[in-house]
Protein backbone atom coordinates (compact mmCIF):
# COMPACT_ATOMS: atom_id res chain seq x y z
CA UNK A 1 0.00 0.00 0.00
CA UNK A 2 2.92 2.35 0.79
CA UNK A 3 4.22 1.90 -2.75
CA UNK A 4 0.83 2.69 -4.22
CA UNK A 5 0.48 5.82 -2.09
CA UNK A 6 3.99 6.95 -3.04
CA UNK A 7 3.12 6.71 -6.75
CA UNK A 8 -0.20 8.45 -6.13
CA UNK A 9 1.56 11.23 -4.25
CA UNK A 10 3.82 11.92 -7.25
CA UNK A 11 0.81 12.09 -9.59
CA UNK A 12 -1.00 14.57 -7.30
CA UNK A 13 2.11 16.76 -7.10
CA UNK A 14 2.36 16.64 -10.89
CA UNK A 15 -1.22 17.90 -11.25
CA UNK A 16 -0.74 20.90 -9.02
CA UNK A 17 2.51 21.79 -10.78
CA UNK A 18 0.80 21.79 -14.15
CA UNK A 19 -1.32 24.72 -15.31
CA UNK A 20 -4.33 22.76 -16.71
CA UNK A 21 -6.42 22.94 -13.57
CA UNK A 22 -5.68 26.61 -12.84
CA UNK A 23 -6.52 27.67 -16.40
CA UNK A 24 -9.80 25.73 -16.46
CA UNK A 25 -10.75 26.93 -12.99
CA UNK A 26 -10.09 30.59 -13.80
CA UNK A 27 -11.90 30.33 -17.15
CA UNK A 28 -14.91 28.77 -15.38
CA UNK A 29 -14.94 31.55 -12.78
CA UNK A 30 -14.64 34.29 -15.40
CA UNK A 31 -17.37 32.91 -17.68
CA UNK A 32 -19.75 32.38 -14.75
CA UNK A 33 -19.15 35.83 -13.30
CA UNK A 34 -19.68 37.49 -16.68
CA UNK A 35 -22.91 35.54 -17.22
CA UNK A 36 -24.09 36.34 -13.68
CA UNK A 37 -23.60 40.04 -14.34
CA UNK A 38 -26.14 40.07 -17.20
CA UNK A 39 -29.19 42.16 -16.32
CA UNK A 40 -32.39 40.11 -16.78
CA UNK A 41 -35.41 42.41 -16.41
CA UNK A 42 -33.79 44.11 -13.37
CA UNK A 43 -34.19 40.90 -11.36
CA UNK A 44 -30.92 40.14 -9.55
CA UNK A 45 -32.13 36.84 -8.04
CA UNK A 46 -32.29 34.86 -11.29
CA UNK A 47 -29.56 32.23 -10.98
CA UNK A 48 -30.49 28.88 -12.54
CA UNK A 49 -29.07 29.67 -15.97
CA UNK A 50 -25.74 30.53 -14.32
CA UNK A 51 -25.89 27.33 -12.23
CA UNK A 52 -26.56 25.36 -15.39
CA UNK A 53 -23.61 26.92 -17.20
CA UNK A 54 -21.32 26.57 -14.19
CA UNK A 55 -22.12 22.86 -13.76
CA UNK A 56 -21.62 22.26 -17.47
CA UNK A 57 -18.19 23.90 -17.30
CA UNK A 58 -17.35 21.89 -14.17
CA UNK A 59 -18.23 18.64 -15.93
CA UNK A 60 -16.29 19.55 -19.07
CA UNK A 61 -13.27 20.77 -17.07
CA UNK A 62 -13.21 17.71 -14.82
CA UNK A 63 -13.39 15.36 -17.82
CA UNK A 64 -10.59 17.27 -19.55
CA UNK A 65 -8.41 17.15 -16.42
CA UNK A 66 -9.17 13.47 -15.75
CA UNK A 67 -8.64 12.21 -19.29
CA UNK A 68 -5.63 14.32 -20.26
CA UNK A 69 -3.85 13.74 -16.93
CA UNK A 70 -4.44 10.00 -16.99
CA UNK A 71 -3.74 9.49 -20.69
CA UNK A 72 -0.15 10.76 -20.40
CA UNK A 73 0.85 8.92 -17.19
CA UNK A 74 2.28 5.64 -18.58
CA UNK A 75 3.41 6.99 -22.01
CA UNK A 76 5.28 9.82 -20.26
CA UNK A 77 7.09 7.36 -17.98
CA UNK A 78 8.04 5.36 -21.05
CA UNK A 79 9.20 8.40 -23.04
CA UNK A 80 11.28 9.80 -20.20
CA UNK A 81 12.74 6.30 -19.65
CA UNK A 82 11.76 6.36 -15.98
CA UNK A 83 9.49 3.33 -16.26
CA UNK A 84 12.24 0.71 -16.05
CA UNK A 85 14.03 2.29 -13.06
CA UNK A 86 10.65 2.65 -11.39
CA UNK A 87 9.82 -1.01 -11.87
CA UNK A 88 13.32 -2.02 -10.79
CA UNK A 89 12.37 -0.81 -7.30
CA UNK A 90 10.22 -3.04 -5.13
CA UNK A 91 7.13 -1.97 -7.04
CA UNK A 92 4.99 -4.39 -9.05
CA UNK A 93 3.33 -3.41 -12.31
CA UNK A 94 -0.11 -3.71 -10.73
CA UNK A 95 0.94 -1.42 -7.89
CA UNK A 96 2.15 1.13 -10.42
CA UNK A 97 -1.19 1.04 -12.24
CA UNK A 98 -3.24 1.27 -9.03
CA UNK A 99 -0.95 4.07 -7.77
CA UNK A 100 -1.40 6.03 -11.00
CA UNK A 101 -5.16 5.52 -10.82
CA UNK A 102 -5.35 6.58 -7.19
CA UNK A 103 -3.19 9.64 -7.83
CA UNK A 104 -5.31 10.79 -10.76
CA UNK A 105 -8.54 10.09 -8.89
CA UNK A 106 -7.51 11.96 -5.75
CA UNK A 107 -6.15 14.84 -7.82
CA UNK A 108 -9.47 15.07 -9.68
CA UNK A 109 -11.28 14.91 -6.33
CA UNK A 110 -9.27 17.90 -5.09
CA UNK A 111 -10.05 19.78 -8.30
CA UNK A 112 -13.76 18.94 -7.88
CA UNK A 113 -13.65 20.25 -4.33
CA UNK A 114 -12.47 23.65 -5.59
CA UNK A 115 -15.02 23.68 -8.43
CA UNK A 116 -17.97 22.75 -6.21
CA UNK A 117 -16.91 25.24 -3.51
CA UNK A 118 -17.03 27.98 -6.15
CA UNK A 119 -20.37 26.67 -7.44
CA UNK A 120 -21.80 26.67 -3.90
CA UNK A 121 -20.59 30.21 -3.26
CA UNK A 122 -22.02 31.42 -6.58
CA UNK A 123 -25.42 29.82 -5.89
CA UNK A 124 -25.56 31.04 -2.30
CA UNK A 125 -24.87 34.61 -3.43
CA UNK A 126 -28.23 34.69 -5.27
CA UNK A 127 -30.35 31.96 -3.66
CA UNK A 128 -29.46 32.83 -0.06
CA UNK A 129 -29.48 29.18 0.99
CA UNK A 130 -26.89 26.45 0.76
CA UNK A 131 -28.14 22.89 0.21
CA UNK A 132 -24.83 21.34 1.30
CA UNK A 133 -26.10 17.75 1.26
CA UNK A 134 -27.35 18.06 -2.32
CA UNK A 135 -23.97 19.42 -3.41
CA UNK A 136 -22.27 16.62 -1.47
CA UNK A 137 -24.35 14.01 -3.30
CA UNK A 138 -23.67 15.63 -6.68
CA UNK A 139 -19.94 15.96 -5.98
CA UNK A 140 -19.66 12.39 -4.72
CA UNK A 141 -21.46 10.96 -7.76
CA UNK A 142 -19.34 13.13 -10.04
CA UNK A 143 -16.18 11.80 -8.38
CA UNK A 144 -17.32 8.18 -8.78
CA UNK A 145 -18.00 8.83 -12.48
CA UNK A 146 -14.46 10.19 -12.79
CA UNK A 147 -13.14 6.96 -11.24
CA UNK A 148 -14.70 5.02 -14.12
CA UNK A 149 -13.37 7.52 -16.68
CA UNK A 150 -9.85 7.47 -15.20
CA UNK A 151 -9.74 3.65 -15.09
CA UNK A 152 -10.98 3.50 -18.68
CA UNK A 153 -8.37 6.04 -19.83
CA UNK A 154 -5.61 4.17 -17.98
CA UNK A 155 -6.60 0.99 -19.82
CA UNK A 156 -6.68 2.96 -23.08
CA UNK A 157 -3.18 4.34 -22.45
CA UNK A 158 -1.88 0.76 -22.48
CA UNK A 159 -3.84 -0.25 -25.56
CA UNK A 160 -3.49 2.77 -27.85
CA UNK A 161 -0.18 3.99 -29.18
CA UNK A 162 -0.31 7.72 -28.43
CA UNK A 163 -1.84 9.73 -25.55
CA UNK A 164 -3.62 11.98 -28.05
CA UNK A 165 -5.47 9.11 -29.75
CA UNK A 166 -6.31 7.59 -26.38
CA UNK A 167 -7.64 10.91 -25.06
CA UNK A 168 -9.72 11.47 -28.20
CA UNK A 169 -11.23 7.99 -28.09
CA UNK A 170 -11.98 8.33 -24.38
CA UNK A 171 -13.66 11.71 -24.94
CA UNK A 172 -15.82 10.22 -27.69
CA UNK A 173 -16.81 7.20 -25.59
CA UNK A 174 -17.55 9.21 -22.44
CA UNK A 175 -19.40 11.92 -24.39
CA UNK A 176 -21.39 9.29 -26.26
CA UNK A 177 -22.39 7.53 -23.05
CA UNK A 178 -23.39 10.79 -21.36
CA UNK A 179 -25.47 11.97 -24.32
CA UNK A 180 -27.16 8.83 -25.67
CA UNK A 181 -26.23 6.01 -23.26
CA UNK A 182 -29.63 6.14 -21.61
CA UNK A 183 -31.47 5.76 -24.93
CA UNK A 184 -29.36 3.12 -26.67
CA UNK A 185 -32.09 0.52 -26.10
CA UNK A 186 -34.64 2.79 -27.80
CA UNK A 187 -32.22 3.31 -30.69
CA UNK A 188 -31.65 -0.46 -30.89
CA UNK A 189 -35.36 -1.18 -31.21
CA UNK A 190 -35.55 0.99 -34.32
CA UNK A 191 -32.78 -0.98 -36.07
CA UNK A 192 -32.73 -4.23 -38.04
CA UNK A 193 -30.95 -7.35 -36.80
CA UNK A 194 -28.03 -7.94 -36.24
CA UNK A 195 -27.46 -4.24 -35.36
CA UNK A 196 -30.38 -4.37 -32.97
CA UNK A 197 -28.74 -7.18 -30.99
CA UNK A 198 -25.33 -5.50 -31.05
CA UNK A 199 -26.57 -2.08 -29.88
CA UNK A 200 -28.79 -3.71 -27.27
CA UNK A 201 -25.80 -5.66 -25.95
CA UNK A 202 -23.72 -2.45 -25.89
CA UNK A 203 -26.49 -0.80 -23.85
CA UNK A 204 -26.16 -3.42 -21.13
CA UNK A 205 -22.36 -3.59 -21.23
CA UNK A 206 -21.35 0.09 -21.07
CA UNK A 207 -20.98 1.91 -17.76
CA UNK A 208 -24.00 4.20 -17.55
CA UNK A 209 -22.23 7.40 -16.57
CA UNK A 210 -25.49 9.36 -16.89
CA UNK A 211 -26.52 7.94 -13.47
CA UNK A 212 -23.82 10.15 -11.96
CA UNK A 213 -24.88 13.34 -13.73
CA UNK A 214 -27.13 15.06 -11.17
CA UNK A 215 -26.92 18.50 -12.76
CA UNK A 216 -30.65 18.87 -13.44
CA UNK A 217 -31.53 18.00 -9.86
CA UNK A 218 -29.08 20.56 -8.51
CA UNK A 219 -30.00 23.32 -10.96
CA UNK A 220 -33.72 23.03 -10.26
CA UNK A 221 -33.44 22.47 -6.49
CA UNK A 222 -34.97 19.00 -6.41
CA UNK A 223 -35.03 17.28 -3.01
CA UNK A 224 -32.21 14.95 -1.90
CA UNK A 225 -31.94 11.51 -3.48
CA UNK A 226 -32.26 8.64 -1.02
CA UNK A 227 -28.78 7.70 0.18
CA UNK A 228 -29.33 4.01 -0.62
CA UNK A 229 -29.60 4.88 -4.32
CA UNK A 230 -26.41 6.96 -4.04
CA UNK A 231 -24.77 3.96 -2.39
CA UNK A 232 -25.95 1.55 -5.09
CA UNK A 233 -24.85 3.85 -7.89
CA UNK A 234 -21.45 4.29 -6.20
CA UNK A 235 -21.08 0.50 -5.98
CA UNK A 236 -21.99 0.27 -9.68
CA UNK A 237 -19.34 2.86 -10.56
CA UNK A 238 -16.68 1.32 -8.35
CA UNK A 239 -17.36 -2.10 -9.91
CA UNK A 240 -16.78 -0.72 -13.42
CA UNK A 241 -13.67 1.17 -12.29
CA UNK A 242 -12.33 -2.01 -10.69
CA UNK A 243 -13.05 -3.97 -13.86
CA UNK A 244 -11.17 -1.48 -16.09
CA UNK A 245 -8.34 -1.30 -13.57
CA UNK A 246 -8.03 -5.10 -13.44
CA UNK A 247 -8.01 -5.19 -17.25
CA UNK A 248 -5.30 -2.49 -17.27
CA UNK A 249 -3.19 -4.51 -14.80
CA UNK A 250 -3.57 -7.63 -16.98
CA UNK A 251 -2.61 -5.78 -20.16
CA UNK A 252 0.34 -4.04 -18.48
CA UNK A 253 1.61 -7.35 -17.05
CA UNK A 254 2.00 -8.74 -20.59
CA UNK A 255 3.34 -5.55 -22.13
CA UNK A 256 6.99 -4.90 -22.93
CA UNK A 257 8.10 -1.82 -21.02
CA UNK A 258 11.09 -0.80 -23.12
Amino acid at each position, binding site marked *: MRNILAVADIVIKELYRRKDFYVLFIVTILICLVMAS*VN*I*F*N*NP*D*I*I*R*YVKSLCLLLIWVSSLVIAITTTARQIPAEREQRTLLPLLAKPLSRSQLIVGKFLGCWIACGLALLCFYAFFGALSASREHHWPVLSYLQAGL*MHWVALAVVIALTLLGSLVFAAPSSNATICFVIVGGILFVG*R*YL*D*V*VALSLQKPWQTIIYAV*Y*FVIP*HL*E*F*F*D*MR*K*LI*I*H*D*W*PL*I*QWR*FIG*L*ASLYGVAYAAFFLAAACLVFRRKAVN
Partner: protein
Amino acid sequence: MNPARTLFLSLVALLVFCFGFAAWLQPQFQDLPFNRSVSMDFWGNLLDDSRDLFANSAFVTADEYYHSGYYPTIFDNNQAFETPHMAEDTGAVASRNSGDETGFMGKPRDWIDAFGRHFIPNRHTHLDEGGPTDDLSTSSEVKEILPWLKLSAELDPEDVKTFVVTAFWLRTRLDETRQAEQVLREGLRYNPGNPQLLFELGRVYFESYHNIPRARMIWEAALRMWHAEAPDKLLSERLNLANQNFDDRFIYEQLQVHLANLEQAAGNYPAAIARWELARPASPTPDDVDRHIADLKQKLSAAKDKSAT
Protein backbone atom coordinates in the same frame (compact mmCIF):
# COMPACT_ATOMS: atom_id res chain seq x y z
CA MET B 1 7.06 41.13 -75.98
CA ASN B 2 8.67 39.70 -72.85
CA PRO B 3 6.37 36.86 -71.62
CA ALA B 4 6.93 37.82 -67.98
CA ARG B 5 5.96 41.39 -68.75
CA THR B 6 2.84 40.17 -70.63
CA LEU B 7 1.86 38.04 -67.70
CA PHE B 8 2.40 40.91 -65.26
CA LEU B 9 0.35 43.32 -67.38
CA SER B 10 -2.42 40.72 -67.77
CA LEU B 11 -2.53 40.33 -64.01
CA VAL B 12 -2.71 44.10 -63.54
CA ALA B 13 -5.49 44.27 -66.16
CA LEU B 14 -7.41 41.51 -64.38
CA LEU B 15 -6.95 43.26 -61.05
CA VAL B 16 -8.25 46.54 -62.50
CA PHE B 17 -11.18 44.68 -64.08
CA CYS B 18 -12.03 42.92 -60.79
CA PHE B 19 -11.86 46.15 -58.83
CA GLY B 20 -14.00 47.97 -61.37
CA PHE B 21 -16.52 45.13 -61.52
CA ALA B 22 -16.77 45.02 -57.73
CA ALA B 23 -17.17 48.80 -57.57
CA TRP B 24 -19.98 48.56 -60.13
CA LEU B 25 -21.71 45.66 -58.34
CA GLN B 26 -21.53 46.99 -54.79
CA PRO B 27 -24.09 49.86 -55.09
CA GLN B 28 -26.52 47.54 -56.91
CA PHE B 29 -26.10 44.87 -54.23
CA GLN B 30 -26.79 47.42 -51.47
CA ASP B 31 -30.14 48.22 -53.07
CA LEU B 32 -31.32 44.61 -53.18
CA PRO B 33 -34.22 43.91 -50.78
CA PHE B 34 -32.62 40.75 -49.31
CA ASN B 35 -29.23 42.38 -48.83
CA ARG B 36 -27.84 41.68 -45.33
CA SER B 37 -24.41 43.19 -45.68
CA VAL B 38 -25.28 46.33 -43.74
CA SER B 39 -27.14 44.56 -40.94
CA MET B 40 -26.15 45.83 -37.50
CA ASP B 41 -27.88 42.88 -35.82
CA PHE B 42 -25.21 41.00 -33.81
CA TRP B 43 -27.02 37.65 -33.67
CA GLY B 44 -28.10 37.95 -37.29
CA ASN B 45 -24.53 38.42 -38.47
CA LEU B 46 -23.17 35.71 -36.19
CA LEU B 47 -25.72 32.95 -36.75
CA ASP B 48 -27.36 33.89 -40.04
CA ASP B 49 -30.41 31.71 -40.79
CA SER B 50 -29.64 29.25 -37.99
CA ARG B 51 -30.64 31.85 -35.39
CA ASP B 52 -34.30 30.78 -35.67
CA LEU B 53 -33.24 27.29 -34.66
CA PHE B 54 -31.28 28.61 -31.70
CA ALA B 55 -34.18 30.89 -30.75
CA ASN B 56 -36.55 27.93 -30.72
CA SER B 57 -34.04 25.93 -28.71
CA ALA B 58 -33.83 28.74 -26.12
CA PHE B 59 -37.65 28.88 -25.99
CA VAL B 60 -37.86 25.12 -25.39
CA THR B 61 -35.15 25.41 -22.71
CA ALA B 62 -37.31 28.02 -20.97
CA ASP B 63 -40.17 25.48 -20.96
CA GLU B 64 -37.78 22.85 -19.60
CA TYR B 65 -36.96 25.25 -16.75
CA TYR B 66 -40.70 25.80 -16.27
CA HIS B 67 -40.90 22.04 -15.63
CA SER B 68 -37.77 22.08 -13.42
CA GLY B 69 -35.96 19.79 -15.84
CA TYR B 70 -38.73 17.19 -16.26
CA TYR B 71 -38.90 17.36 -20.04
CA PRO B 72 -39.01 14.90 -22.96
CA THR B 73 -35.99 14.43 -25.20
CA ILE B 74 -36.14 13.50 -28.89
CA PHE B 75 -36.27 9.86 -27.78
CA ASP B 76 -39.38 10.34 -25.62
CA ASN B 77 -43.03 10.74 -26.51
CA ASN B 78 -43.52 14.51 -26.71
CA GLN B 79 -47.15 14.69 -27.89
CA ALA B 80 -48.09 16.38 -24.62
CA PHE B 81 -45.36 19.00 -25.10
CA GLU B 82 -46.02 20.11 -28.70
CA THR B 83 -46.98 23.53 -27.38
CA PRO B 84 -44.76 24.60 -24.48
CA HIS B 85 -46.83 24.60 -21.28
CA MET B 86 -45.46 27.97 -20.16
CA ALA B 87 -46.99 29.39 -23.37
CA GLU B 88 -50.22 27.37 -23.11
CA ASP B 89 -50.76 28.56 -19.52
CA THR B 90 -50.73 32.20 -20.61
CA GLY B 91 -54.08 31.72 -22.38
CA ALA B 92 -52.75 33.69 -25.33
CA VAL B 93 -51.31 30.78 -27.34
CA ALA B 94 -53.29 27.95 -28.92
CA SER B 95 -52.60 24.43 -27.61
CA ARG B 96 -51.70 21.47 -29.84
CA ASN B 97 -50.99 19.12 -26.97
CA SER B 98 -52.46 15.69 -26.56
CA GLY B 99 -51.47 12.65 -24.53
CA ASP B 100 -50.27 12.23 -20.98
CA GLU B 101 -48.03 15.07 -19.83
CA THR B 102 -47.31 13.45 -16.46
CA GLY B 103 -46.08 10.14 -17.79
CA PHE B 104 -44.26 10.75 -21.06
CA MET B 105 -41.48 8.45 -19.85
CA GLY B 106 -43.87 5.52 -19.76
CA LYS B 107 -43.09 2.42 -17.74
CA PRO B 108 -39.39 1.68 -17.11
CA ARG B 109 -38.02 -0.31 -20.04
CA ASP B 110 -35.51 -2.29 -17.97
CA TRP B 111 -33.61 -2.12 -14.68
CA ILE B 112 -31.11 0.41 -16.04
CA ASP B 113 -33.93 2.77 -17.06
CA ALA B 114 -35.75 2.20 -13.75
CA PHE B 115 -32.63 2.83 -11.68
CA GLY B 116 -31.58 5.84 -13.78
CA ARG B 117 -34.90 7.59 -13.06
CA HIS B 118 -33.80 8.16 -9.45
CA PHE B 119 -31.11 10.56 -10.71
CA ILE B 120 -33.17 12.77 -13.01
CA PRO B 121 -36.27 14.94 -12.47
CA ASN B 122 -39.07 12.36 -12.52
CA ARG B 123 -42.26 14.25 -11.67
CA HIS B 124 -44.38 16.69 -13.69
CA THR B 125 -44.43 20.10 -11.97
CA HIS B 126 -44.78 23.73 -13.04
CA LEU B 127 -42.62 26.47 -11.55
CA ASP B 128 -45.57 28.80 -11.01
CA GLU B 129 -47.18 26.09 -8.87
CA GLY B 130 -44.16 25.69 -6.62
CA GLY B 131 -42.00 23.41 -8.77
CA PRO B 132 -40.50 20.32 -7.14
CA THR B 133 -41.26 21.62 -3.63
CA ASP B 134 -45.01 22.04 -4.39
CA ASP B 135 -44.81 25.21 -2.28
CA LEU B 136 -47.23 27.71 -3.84
CA SER B 137 -45.56 30.60 -2.01
CA THR B 138 -42.54 30.13 -4.30
CA SER B 139 -44.49 30.73 -7.52
CA SER B 140 -42.23 33.71 -8.29
CA GLU B 141 -39.55 31.11 -9.10
CA VAL B 142 -41.05 31.25 -12.59
CA LYS B 143 -38.59 34.14 -13.05
CA GLU B 144 -35.97 31.48 -13.87
CA ILE B 145 -37.45 31.04 -17.36
CA LEU B 146 -36.82 34.71 -18.23
CA PRO B 147 -33.14 34.54 -19.30
CA TRP B 148 -33.99 31.95 -21.95
CA LEU B 149 -37.01 33.93 -23.15
CA LYS B 150 -34.88 37.05 -23.38
CA LEU B 151 -32.26 35.17 -25.41
CA SER B 152 -34.96 33.68 -27.66
CA ALA B 153 -36.46 37.13 -28.29
CA GLU B 154 -33.05 38.58 -29.12
CA LEU B 155 -32.31 35.74 -31.53
CA ASP B 156 -35.65 35.82 -33.30
CA PRO B 157 -37.62 39.02 -32.63
CA GLU B 158 -40.20 38.02 -35.23
CA ASP B 159 -41.48 35.17 -33.06
CA VAL B 160 -44.33 36.94 -31.25
CA LYS B 161 -45.09 34.15 -28.78
CA THR B 162 -41.78 34.82 -26.99
CA PHE B 163 -42.86 38.40 -26.20
CA VAL B 164 -46.36 37.27 -25.21
CA VAL B 165 -45.06 34.61 -22.82
CA THR B 166 -42.42 36.91 -21.30
CA ALA B 167 -44.94 39.68 -20.74
CA PHE B 168 -47.53 37.34 -19.22
CA TRP B 169 -45.19 35.91 -16.57
CA LEU B 170 -43.65 39.29 -15.79
CA ARG B 171 -47.12 40.70 -15.19
CA THR B 172 -48.88 37.86 -13.39
CA ARG B 173 -46.23 36.30 -11.17
CA LEU B 174 -43.56 38.96 -10.79
CA ASP B 175 -45.83 42.05 -10.58
CA GLU B 176 -43.72 43.80 -13.20
CA THR B 177 -46.58 45.28 -15.25
CA ARG B 178 -44.51 48.18 -16.62
CA GLN B 179 -41.78 45.78 -17.78
CA ALA B 180 -44.44 43.53 -19.33
CA GLU B 181 -45.88 46.45 -21.27
CA GLN B 182 -42.39 47.43 -22.37
CA VAL B 183 -41.74 43.89 -23.63
CA LEU B 184 -44.97 43.91 -25.64
CA ARG B 185 -44.19 47.31 -27.12
CA GLU B 186 -40.73 46.02 -28.04
CA GLY B 187 -42.44 43.06 -29.75
CA LEU B 188 -44.75 45.45 -31.60
CA ARG B 189 -41.74 47.43 -32.81
CA TYR B 190 -40.50 44.29 -34.59
CA ASN B 191 -44.00 43.03 -35.54
CA PRO B 192 -46.14 46.12 -36.11
CA GLY B 193 -49.85 45.56 -35.51
CA ASN B 194 -49.53 41.88 -34.63
CA PRO B 195 -52.95 40.78 -33.26
CA GLN B 196 -51.46 38.35 -30.73
CA LEU B 197 -49.28 41.06 -29.20
CA LEU B 198 -52.14 43.56 -29.24
CA PHE B 199 -54.41 41.00 -27.54
CA GLU B 200 -51.89 40.57 -24.72
CA LEU B 201 -51.39 44.34 -24.49
CA GLY B 202 -55.16 44.68 -24.14
CA ARG B 203 -55.06 42.18 -21.29
CA VAL B 204 -52.37 44.25 -19.58
CA TYR B 205 -54.69 47.28 -19.69
CA PHE B 206 -57.78 45.28 -18.71
CA GLU B 207 -56.41 43.01 -15.98
CA SER B 208 -53.54 45.05 -14.53
CA TYR B 209 -54.33 48.72 -15.18
CA HIS B 210 -58.15 48.16 -15.11
CA ASN B 211 -58.39 50.64 -17.98
CA ILE B 212 -61.41 49.17 -19.81
CA PRO B 213 -61.83 51.79 -22.58
CA ARG B 214 -58.15 51.47 -23.53
CA ALA B 215 -58.34 47.66 -23.45
CA ARG B 216 -61.43 47.71 -25.69
CA MET B 217 -59.69 50.05 -28.11
CA ILE B 218 -56.62 47.82 -28.33
CA TRP B 219 -58.66 44.64 -28.81
CA GLU B 220 -60.75 46.25 -31.53
CA ALA B 221 -57.54 47.41 -33.22
CA ALA B 222 -56.22 43.84 -32.91
CA LEU B 223 -59.35 42.53 -34.65
CA ARG B 224 -58.92 45.06 -37.46
CA MET B 225 -55.29 43.99 -37.85
CA TRP B 226 -56.37 40.35 -37.83
CA HIS B 227 -58.72 41.00 -40.75
CA ALA B 228 -56.09 43.13 -42.51
CA GLU B 229 -53.54 40.27 -42.35
CA ALA B 230 -55.40 38.36 -45.07
CA PRO B 231 -57.97 40.71 -46.64
CA ASP B 232 -58.52 38.48 -49.68
CA LYS B 233 -59.27 35.36 -47.68
CA LEU B 234 -62.84 34.48 -46.71
CA LEU B 235 -63.55 34.48 -42.96
CA SER B 236 -65.05 30.98 -43.13
CA GLU B 237 -61.90 29.74 -44.81
CA ARG B 238 -59.63 31.27 -42.18
CA LEU B 239 -61.71 29.88 -39.33
CA ASN B 240 -62.10 26.41 -40.80
CA LEU B 241 -61.43 23.91 -38.01
CA ALA B 242 -59.52 21.70 -40.41
CA ASN B 243 -57.12 24.58 -40.95
CA GLN B 244 -53.76 23.92 -39.30
CA ASN B 245 -53.23 27.55 -38.33
CA PHE B 246 -54.27 27.11 -34.70
CA ASP B 247 -52.89 30.46 -33.49
CA ASP B 248 -54.75 32.44 -36.15
CA ARG B 249 -58.11 30.90 -35.21
CA PHE B 250 -57.38 30.98 -31.50
CA ILE B 251 -56.51 34.67 -31.36
CA TYR B 252 -59.66 35.60 -33.32
CA GLU B 253 -61.82 33.60 -30.92
CA GLN B 254 -60.11 35.10 -27.85
CA LEU B 255 -60.49 38.65 -29.14
CA GLN B 256 -64.19 38.15 -29.84
CA VAL B 257 -64.76 36.45 -26.47
CA HIS B 258 -62.94 39.18 -24.54
CA LEU B 259 -64.86 41.91 -26.36
CA ALA B 260 -68.10 39.99 -25.74
CA ASN B 261 -67.30 39.84 -22.03
CA LEU B 262 -66.73 43.62 -22.01
CA GLU B 263 -70.14 44.14 -23.64
CA GLN B 264 -71.77 41.72 -21.21
CA ALA B 265 -70.19 43.47 -18.21
CA ALA B 266 -71.54 46.79 -19.57
CA GLY B 267 -75.03 45.22 -19.84
CA ASN B 268 -75.00 45.47 -23.62
CA TYR B 269 -76.41 41.99 -24.28
CA PRO B 270 -77.21 42.28 -28.02
CA ALA B 271 -73.62 43.34 -28.77
CA ALA B 272 -72.31 40.57 -26.51
CA ILE B 273 -74.46 37.98 -28.32
CA ALA B 274 -73.22 39.28 -31.66
CA ARG B 275 -69.60 38.88 -30.51
CA TRP B 276 -70.22 35.34 -29.24
CA GLU B 277 -71.83 34.43 -32.55
CA LEU B 278 -68.74 35.70 -34.34
CA ALA B 279 -66.53 33.69 -31.98
CA ARG B 280 -68.52 30.48 -32.50
CA PRO B 281 -67.00 29.32 -35.84
CA ALA B 282 -63.49 29.65 -34.40
CA SER B 283 -64.25 27.89 -31.13
CA PRO B 284 -63.09 24.27 -30.63
CA THR B 285 -66.16 23.84 -28.34
CA PRO B 286 -69.10 25.42 -30.24
CA ASP B 287 -71.66 23.71 -27.98
CA ASP B 288 -70.37 25.66 -24.99
CA VAL B 289 -70.62 28.88 -27.01
CA ASP B 290 -74.22 27.99 -27.97
CA ARG B 291 -75.11 27.44 -24.34
CA HIS B 292 -73.57 30.77 -23.43
CA ILE B 293 -75.49 32.53 -26.21
CA ALA B 294 -78.76 30.93 -25.03
CA ASP B 295 -78.00 32.07 -21.49
CA LEU B 296 -77.37 35.63 -22.70
CA LYS B 297 -80.59 35.61 -24.74
CA GLN B 298 -82.50 34.60 -21.62
CA LYS B 299 -80.88 37.45 -19.70
CA LEU B 300 -81.74 39.82 -22.52
CA SER B 301 -85.43 38.84 -22.58
CA ALA B 302 -85.55 39.02 -18.78
CA ALA B 303 -84.10 42.53 -18.93
CA LYS B 304 -86.65 43.51 -21.62
CA ASP B 305 -89.54 42.13 -19.50
CA LYS B 306 -88.24 43.98 -16.49
CA SER B 307 -88.05 47.27 -18.39
CA ALA B 308 -91.58 46.69 -19.87
CA THR B 309 -93.11 46.21 -16.42
